[in-house]
């Protein structure tokens, strides 16, 4: 027996990127814009979507729900009478902590792409893994909430840098915490200079209209004819 070195020089995530590109091509062909919505567990992804997608005008929106297990979030959003498809991440290994391109790929046949203009993918609540795995999205957005503290951009720079838009949610709680919005924005500016920001409360509805408009504006104009 003897050892031979084989040069590989391949990105660890290249295979995922290839599948993500195939997903993206399918979405493009169907004229569907896709937002990958990420956050720590419980930052308010489902709550914000419940609020924002309650009135979408002529834009037809669908949701792909990634969850480690169960269909609680999908059931909540189904109340809005929009297409909701659920992916449970690999229960074989204790539950995967993010969506990858392959999981989204396997869900595509269930998504009525011809009937929607915009697809929001609610990723699994996690600030680490979803930062690495592209799924074929056009936009990467994230939600950070007042109860998580101001230091999250500094502790999870990869996630905050991988998103072009950050929503600060649960602003109704600002009077009850020592959270400094100014410090949060300064920390965000350090890791992702120029990132677009929104402030919302899914509880009171504050800021929802502006965020909803931003979201629906992503849909191709044809969807609003």
């Amino acid at each position, binding site marked *: *027996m*003897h*050892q*031979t*070195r*084989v*040069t*590989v*020089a*391949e*990105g*660890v*995530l*290249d*295979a*995922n990127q290839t599948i993500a590109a195939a997903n993206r091509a399918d979405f493009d062909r169907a004229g569907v814009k896709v937002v990958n919505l990420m956050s720590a567990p419980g930052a308010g992804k489902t709550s914000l979507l419940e609020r924002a997608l309650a009135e979408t005008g002529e834009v037809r929106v669908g949701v792909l729900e990634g969850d480690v297990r169960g269909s609680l979030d999908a059931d909540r959003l189904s109340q809005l009478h929009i297409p909701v498809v659920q992916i449970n991440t690999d229960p074989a*290994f204790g539950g*995967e*902590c*993010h969506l*990858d391109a392959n999981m989204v790929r396997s869900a595509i046949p269930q998504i009525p792409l011809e009937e929607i203009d915009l697809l929001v993918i609610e990723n699994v609540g996690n600030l*680490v*893994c979803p*930062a*690495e*795995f592209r799924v074929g999205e056009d936009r990467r957005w994230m939600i950070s909430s007042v109860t998580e503290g101001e*230091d999250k*951009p*500094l*502790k*999870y*720079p*990869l996630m905050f*840098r991988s998103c072009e838009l950050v929503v600060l949610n649960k602003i109704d709680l600002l009077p009850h915490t020592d959270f400094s919005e100014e410090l949060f924005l300064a920390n965000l*500016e*350090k*890791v*992702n*200079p*120029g990132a677009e920001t929104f402030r919302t409360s899914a509880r009171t509805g504050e800021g929802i209209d502006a965020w909803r408009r931003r979201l629906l504006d992503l849909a191709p104009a044809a969807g609003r004819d």
Partner: protein
Amino acid sequence: MHELAVAREIVGVAERHAGGLAVSVVRVKVGCLRQVVPEYLGFYFDVCARDTCCGGAELEWERTPSLLRCSACGAEWDPAPPPAHADHELLVDFRCPGCRGGNHSVISGDELVVESIEVEEPAADPGRETAAANEPGGG
């Protein structure tokens, strides 16, 4: 666990390049800008490699430092130096320390690459670069 998914991808890459041969070493480069902890990676690699051609293989990792270059003034800096002490403040800053510019290129630190593997071949293959066959305990 994040490193689990990354480890699984690493095994997949190694398998595709091993040509059906047994793999004894997998070498990866992990940049400091990636949120991958190489120590955990080794543990999960062992788990994921079981029952594949990488079973029992060693994962050798190299950490590459984070270094950016400002697109405006050319300054180079480490945006996220490791804190000298666990309770020290995080000195993360991706803005240029010279001109405060927000645009930069990454010189080093975002690597997550399988560089090479060592496969065990029954006989020499002249098409491949051969490493000195001094496996400990081999023979």
